[in-house]
């Protein structure tokens, strides 16, 4: 049984997309959601509160999703945080780069609430095994 009572950090430079992802997560029963507009702000949020799951866009100014992923995996305290990469970049090289950097899974835009919440559920289930 997957616990929906987790705090999810949604990272995207577009406020509208953060709102869309927030709405989709709510459809999956996830209510505790915080937002950050880029990788730099995401790291600040991760340092200041306990975040259970990261849903991050790839293509952002200041610090990209890939750079954020690398920073999270390199930080002893944050390294095990599940990381779902949201991307319009489904190109093979990008997928390989994200997997090498330790992404938990990735989801290609556009996507439905069902697909997003199923990906999250599977990542959490795999961690519970």
């Amino acid at each position, binding site marked *: 049984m997957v616990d929906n009572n987790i705090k999810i950090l949604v990272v995207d430079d577009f*406020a*509208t997309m953060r709102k869309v992802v927030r709405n989709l997560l709510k459809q999956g029963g996830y209510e505790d959601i915080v937002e950050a507009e880029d990788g730099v702000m995401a790291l600040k949020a991760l340092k200041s509160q306990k975040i259970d799951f990261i849903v991050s866009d790839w*293509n952002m100014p200041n610090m990209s999703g890939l750079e954020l992923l690398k920073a999270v995996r390199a930080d002893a305290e944050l390294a095990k945080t599940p990381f779902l990469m949201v991307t*319009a970049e489904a*190109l093979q090289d990008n997928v390989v780069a994200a997997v090498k950097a330790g992404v938990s899974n990735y989801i290609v*835009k*556009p996507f439905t609430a069902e697909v997003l919440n199923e990906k999250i559920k599977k990542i959490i289930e795999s961690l519970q095994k």
Partner: protein
Amino acid sequence: MNVQFINPFIEGTVSVLKTMAFVEPRAGKPYLKLDTLAKGDISGIIGLTGSAAGSLALSFSEGAILKIVSNMLGEDLKSINSDVKDAVGELTNMVSGVARKNLEAAGFYIQAAIPTIVSGKDHSIAHVMGGPSLIIPFEIDEGVFVVDVCLAE
């Protein structure tokens, strides 16, 4: 422009709007655009580089974009505000992503920049390669929009 470039952008546009905004746009007949005048009230433009280079613009009439973003956010929007501008950027990004993925299957490896947004009546679209560009017109019940592509190998 290579005709192989047309379908990936049509498929990308329909797929993105159907999934994210629950609308089913109807595509019209593509034609060449010789000037820089936008065909809508708000446009998102994104630069493309790689084995084909140029730019993609999505240009929406007010009626079309208000319906699309209202559906995306689950809110009833009445005018073009910052949420709408933001959404146009994201939609441009997503259409470019799906189209580039489809083009990859055809052997073209293309990267995209971060989109910029232009709004206002009679604004212009400056394509990276100059032009002419290919216009693919679309319509939904609430208004029209176009995909404006200028891409060269």
